[in-house]
């Protein structure tokens, strides 16, 4: 990695941004936090550029700009292999990536704000119930993950070491708290996320600890 400090374009509440923040913290990579308010940006119709990327997270590092949180996580894992977040064994790596995809592809995109605002408007226009749709997506996703964790988890998602699966899990659970999902149906997810939330790298990456978190959000119980 070059001597220049990486720059992370991030939104405090974005679960994808939290994943990358956790990874950077875990690997003890010092970075500059560049807050982006996507909703304001979309409303102002700003021009997007390398210093003003359209999506978060975006990581400027080693002279390049990376987007898509999972691609960023894999890049950091390959270029900064100390304090690894992937096991060495290929099968266990596949288990980790399976959970990563179950979260990053099968849950988060279906409910991420910039998509679901428009899709929920459509749903409502046809007489659908937006909360019901979101809860449907999340519940189905969590059911699959809970079944997977029954086979793979130890102290954390896959065995007893923190992996990229854990990095993705905690932000997703936090993000879905506001929809009132009954998490008692997912005891493994609940137990693991409780334990992860005590780890420094995850705490430091928490939305409430970011410089762009409004004061009124900091006082809310997560």
């Amino acid at each position: 990695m070059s001597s220049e400090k990486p720059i992370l374009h991030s939104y405090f509440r974005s679960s994808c941004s939290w994943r990358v923040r956790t990874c950077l913290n875990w690997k003890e990579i010092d970075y500059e936090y560049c807050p982006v308010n996507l909703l304001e940006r979309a409303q102002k119709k700003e021009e997007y550029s390398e210093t003003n990327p359209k999506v978060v997270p975006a990581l400027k590092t080693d002279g390049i700009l990376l987007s898509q949180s999972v691609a960023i996580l894999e890049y950091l894992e390959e270029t900064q292999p100390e304090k690894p977040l992937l096991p060495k064994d290929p099968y266990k790596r596949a288990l980790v990536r399976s959970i990563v995809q179950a979260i990053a592809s099968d849950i988060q995109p279906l409910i991420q704000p910039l998509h679901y605002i428009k899709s929920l408007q459509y749903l409502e226009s046809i007489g659908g119930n937006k909360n019901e749709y979101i809860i449907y997506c999340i519940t189905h996703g969590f059911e699959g993950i809970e079944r997977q964790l029954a086979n793979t988890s130890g102290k954390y998602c896959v065995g007893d070491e923190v992996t990229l699966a854990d990095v993705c899990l905690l932000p997703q659970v936090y993000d879905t708290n506001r929809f009132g999902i009954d998490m008692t149906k997912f005891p493994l997810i609940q137990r693991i996320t409780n334990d992860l939330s005590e780890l420094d790298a995850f705490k430091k990456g928490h939305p409430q600890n970011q410089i762009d978190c409004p004061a009124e959000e900091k006082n809310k119980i997560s």
Partner: protein
Amino acid sequence: MSSCSWRVRTCLNWKGIDYEYCPVNVLEGSQNKEEYSEINPYKFVPTLKIDGVILNQSVAILEYLEETRPEKSLLPKDPYKRALVRSLVQAIAGDIQPLQNLRPLQYIESTGGNKTEWAVYCITHGFEGVEKQLAKASGKYCVGNEVTLADLCLLPQVYNANWFGIDMAKYPLIQRIANDLSELDAFKKAHPQNQIDCPDKEKNKNLRAFI
């Protein structure tokens, strides 16, 4: 017809890995049966049994095959180019396909919505982003001049776009690359119409509607 399964079939073909095909009829809900969820907790296809283990989630399977069978590689060696490939993989496999997958479409239909309208919105929104990424990353294929995992994800998504009648002329890079990929043996052999569970009436359709 599963685009996620198509990705894995292409990868197996590309790497010259012979495999046994076990059909799962998702339209009839076979993936929701209890015995299937024992091998795939997400009740999705594909599931790959290999090396004595069972793998699920197509992107995880692709990465596993790439790591354990590195010959005829589908990821560049350079970490930045690998990130570009993975970024496109996620743009398709994360930000488009799951939104127009069978389950959300069935949900939309159950609420009285138009599932084609929904799918067209999801794919169009996603392809706009992919086309912009390709403007920077592509050469002959999605990232440079070699076939990568991004290409394995792209062609099946374009097939879906054609299925929903999306005007591909708005995405010239996607269209050009998909056309070229569809000529490659590994992709052709993996095409839905060449699978043993493809109904006869589907085999005769000309779904290769690239304009």
